[in-house]
Every structure is written in C-alpha cells, then in structure tokens.
C-alpha cells in the first residue's frame, strides 16, 4: 500500500513551482527569454503529487506546458532557466527552449510542443523497459486538447494491448488555447471515460486537490508498477494566465470572469494553507529558501555563455555510438 500524501512536501513542491513560474513571468517582459513560454500557474498540484511519488528511474514526458513536471521530477533549475535564456548551459543547450526541457539524470526525458507528440514516445519507453525487465514506469502528461490527436488513441491502444507500464496523465484545464471543450469533445463523458475504449483502468479527480491527486495517482501507480498494464488519469484544473506568455488574458473574454475567479479561489496552494499546512513558520522558511535559490539560479543562468554561432551544425548528426 502506498503511503499517505506527504502534504508539507507537496506544499513545498507546489510553492517552489509557483515561485519559479512567477519569477519567470516577472522577468519575461525584459525580452531576454526569447522563446514562447507556457506557464502552469494554478496547475501545480498535478505535477507535485504525481512526480512526487516517482522514482528517479521512472521516466517522465511532457508537452508544451512542462515547467511544473520538469521541476517536480527533480529537473535542474539552473539548466532550465539557462535554456529559457538560450544559453549553451541550458538543459537542451539552447537548441530547444522552454518547450524542449530535458534532464536525464532526473528521469525527465523530454517535453515537446507538438500536441500528443511525446505520448507514443512514452509508450515506447515503457515497451523497452519491459524488454529490459526493468521496473521503471513511463509517465506522460498532456492536456485535454492533446487527447483529440490520433496519436493519443494509437498510444492508448497499444499500451493496453501489450499491458505496458505507462501512466497517462491528462491535465484537463477545460481549454485548448482559447477553445472550450464544447464542440471539441463529446458532451456527457469525461476524458477518463476513454479508458473504457481500451479496457484500461481510469480515474478522475480534482486536480487542484493535491491530496486527491496523490491518492488517485498512488493507486494507479501501484497497478502500473504491479504489471497490470497502463492507467489513464484525468485531473481537472485551470490555467490562471494566458495560454502562452506571462500575463492574464481576461480581457480576451473567452473565459467568464466568474469562472476565472472561481478557479483562482480554488488555488491548490492556498487550499493546503487553509488546512494549516505547512504552518506559517515553515512557509516563511520555504519562501526564504526558494527566493534565495531562484535568485541564485537566475544569476547563474544569465551569467552563462550563449551558444557559439559556429556550432550551429552541432548535434544534427551524432558521431558513431
């Protein structure tokens, strides 16, 4: 049986993601992070609670909105910021930017912005894990929009057919860019219901309730690790800022302001705080620690060298392995 949700740690993990995202948002308008950035502010509970119970050897994959997953899985902060700043020391050596995070040491394999693009790759990693008789699992995060892509179906079908150790985690924030669910997906069914198409266990939970996410993921991970094949999880959550970029976008009018306010009131961090987790003193300590870490990380990232334009042709073809 899995342990109960370690709420103080989850609080810390969420708060850290929030503070890092806020720091990026604050500095983004300076125009030195010259790549599209998709913030996960408001959605921190899912990365924290899912990645919080993964081993280093477990492999995580994500999409365009990947900062939280990368950080919660233990991805190196300086390397991530350096990547956003287009530095040679970036986790992808500046070639990828915010949408191509990677930290193999932490088991964060790859994020990529083409919707659903990393889903089959995660399944392939699970397939080869079974060949190696490894116990590591693949976890892939994606949005509600990504489930509309054919590659999602092909991946679910194969993972179920071969009973592969993959956890499919959908962060349903009800929008794909500015498009609501209506018209994009059938009414009257949850994304989790798609599990039935593949005889795949699936569950649904409030993605802003970190304890609920933890429990739901714990059960699913136990199944997946136990060799019972893949699971699909759907967590309902909400993005606070604009689809891409550091600002709110309430002025666009595609989301009712009551809706936005309602979800802001359901802040996953505030929720724990209201329950007294982790306590004021601890929170102050965390804030101080993260502030120092973040400042140092920005300084290190910004001090790092730019890639040399003469290396433009590097990494196109590897040398022989």
């Amino acid at each position, binding site marked *: 049986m899995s342990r109960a949700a370690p709420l103080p740690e989850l609080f810390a993990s969420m708060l850290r993601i929030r503070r890092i995202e806020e720091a990026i948002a604050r500095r*983004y308008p300076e*125009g030195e992070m*010259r*790549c*599209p*950035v998709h913030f996960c502010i408001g959605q921190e509970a899912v990365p924290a609670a899912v990645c919080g119970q993964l081993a280093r050897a477990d492999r995580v994959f994500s999409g365009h909105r990947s900062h939280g997953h990368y950080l919660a899985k233990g991805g190196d902060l300086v390397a991530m910021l350096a990547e956003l700043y*287009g*530095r040679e020391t*970036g986790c*992808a050596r*500046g*070639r*990828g*930017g*915010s*949408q*191509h995070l990677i930290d193999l040491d932490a088991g964060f394999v790859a994020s*990529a*912005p*083409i*919707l*659903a*693009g990393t889903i089959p790759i995660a399944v392939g990693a699970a397939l080869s894990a079974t060949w190696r008789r490894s116990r590591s699992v693949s976890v892939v995060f994606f949005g509600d*929009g*990504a489930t*509309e*892509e*054919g590659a999602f179906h092909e991946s679910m079908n194969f993972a179920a057919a071969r009973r592969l150790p993959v956890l499919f985690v959908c962060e349903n924030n009800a929008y*794909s*860019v*500015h*498009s609501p669910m209506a*018209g*994009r*997906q059938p009414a009257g069914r949850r994304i989790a219901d798609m599990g039935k198409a593949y005889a795949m266990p699936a569950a649904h939970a409030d993605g802003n309730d970190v304890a609920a996410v933890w429990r739901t993921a714990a059960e699913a991970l136990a199944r997946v690790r136990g060799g019972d094949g893949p699971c699909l999880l759907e967590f309902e959550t909400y993005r606070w800022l604009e689809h*891409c*970029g*550091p600002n709110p976008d309430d002025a*666009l*009018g*595609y989301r009712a302001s009551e809706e936005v306010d309602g979800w802001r009131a359901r802040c996953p961090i505030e929720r724990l705080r209201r329950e007294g987790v982790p306590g004021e003193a601890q929170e102050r300590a965390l804030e101080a620690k993260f502030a120092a870490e973040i400042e140092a990380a920005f300084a290190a990232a910004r001090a790092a060298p*730019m*890639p*040399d*334009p003469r*290396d*433009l*042709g590097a990494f*196109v073809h590897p040398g022989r392995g």
Partner: protein
Amino acid sequence: MRARTFAQAIHEGLAQAMAEDPRVCLMGPGVPGPTGIFGTTTGLAERFGAERVMDMPSSEQAMTGFALGATLDGYRPVVVHMRVDFAVLAMDQMVNQVAKWHFMYGGRLRAPIVFRLIVGRGWGQGPQHSQSLQAWFAHVPGFKVAMPASPRDAKGLLVAAIRDDSPVVLVEHRWLYGLSGDVPETLYETPLGVARIARPGRHATVAATSYMVIEALRAADRLAALGIEIEVVDMRSLVPLDVSTLCESVARTGHLVVADTGSVAFGAGAEIAATAAERAFAHLRRAPVRIGLPHYPSPTAPALADAYFPRAVDIERALATLLDVDPARLPAEDPPHGRWRDTPDPSFRGPY
C-alpha cells in the same frame, strides 16, 4: 494607395470571398477565437456564422478529411494551420487523399480546398514551430502551391486559391503579417502560376519566395548604391512554376541567385535552380547560387537563430561573388534593432 497590412489583406480577402460565395467556409483550431489567427479571421464568425467559421479540435489529420468530405456538398473550405509544422500531422489526408482526389476517381470528384500554412519564424519558435516545407507540397502532384510576399498578393493569391478547383497550399510567413502595402478594395485575383518582377535590374536575377523577397529587395537596394542593378523576381507560386518569367529574367541578366525560406537541400530552390539550368543554360554566365537554410533543424536560442536564418547580407555576398565585386565594397549590414535579429521590426513584442 490603399495601405493595408499583409494580415489585413488576408482578412479582407477571406471576408470578400465568403461574401461572394456562400460555399466558402473556414476551419481550424482558433479560427473563430478572440485572437483570430493573428488577426486574419477576427470577426468573421460573428459576420458569417459559426457554421462557416468553425473551431476545430486538435485533430489535424481528420480535420483535413472533414474538409474533403464537405466538398461533396459543394463547399470550398479554407483550412488553417497556425504553424506549417502542424500540417505535418495531416500529411496522409493531404497527400494520399486530397491531392489525388480528382485524379484517382477519374475526374468525378474535386477537392477545392485551400490550406493556409503559417511559417512561425522568430522569437525562439524553435525546431517544431518554424519549418518551411513548401517543397514537400510542391513535390506532390495535385496541389498548387503559392507563397505571397506582399499584402496585395496575400489577398490576390488567397482569392485565386479559393476560386480554384484544385487544392491549393498557401504558405504565409509570419514576418510578413505586419508589412504594409497597397491593397485594392475590389475582389481581385493574383493568378496562380505567374511570377512578378518585384524590381527590375540588369546585372543579376534574384528569384525569391515569400519573406525572402523582402530580403532580396533590401539587398537590391543596398547594391544599387554600388551601381549594381539587381532584378528581383517574386516567384509567388511554386506550382505552377512560372518558368518563362524566371528564364527570361536570367536571359537578361545572365546570373541567378535563388533565395527560399526553406532548407536549401532538396528544397524549392533546387527546382528553381535546376529549371534555370535546364531552360536558360545558354544564358547563365556563372553557376546559379542557392540561399536558404542550412541542413540543420531550427535552433531556439537567438544566438544560433540569428546565424541560421539567411538575410539580405547573404544574398549580397552571393551576388558579389557572382558579379566579381570585392566583398569589402559591400555596405556594412544595418545593426539589429535590439540585441538580436529574431523579430521582424521594433514594434514587434513577444511572446509571439
């Protein structure tokens, strides 16, 4: 002169074509949304209704088939991809079905669909958001392919594409959207398959596509100060390719530089250069030269991207070599408006 931006010209072309023909409809994720595909579709849903200006799920492959199915009832869909890279997910329907639709049923069906594919260059669009794959579509029999470089042609080629009964791929370059120019108010066509002498000259021809026409015009401007007269041919269409305008220009100048927005290798420039070598061989005084992307994926960091994307200066250097001009005589390149050259003009602001 009726000044409109490239984006406004597209908007006007869409609105007028939809007003003219009730069978014209638009589909794509975000098409009716509040930002309206960089402003090119704003307000059209309100004006023409949600049925004709359709939001779509992120299902690029099937969306293409939906458009094709709708042609059976006479509809003429305009399908929009915010990035060329997303159309890559639709290649089966585009290439195996749409392009061959008329042919493989012996002429009994037609696929009058327009695909608006937007090239997303700059501001770290990176490897998966800034490809320029026009050569692919041009290689597939059945498509017509056009690449507007001016506001006037953005509207005119779009209207021609919508009225054409073949599937037409329009490649729109993001860096042109803010460009302003004369756009007639009437509903006019820029015929597919006809190139345009964007600037006459007698010393060398630069045959360019899309945004590279702008860079070629800059190069021509700057070389004019040295008394060198460059003819800039805006190819406008790849399929049909206007071989005669190209070859006649080369016959006049004797020199050819091809400047395309995509990868040089196996790219659109290869067809243009090969065509000139075949059809204007006797007129070529020197070997043709191709300008475009090196055979690397598109990097995100501006320090790399600035070196990756060709500019006027690259065209100037190629011309200098062709015309035996001492490169030291070339004017110095203008400094970037900021630290980097990854945005088209100073008024542009991120994220994108």
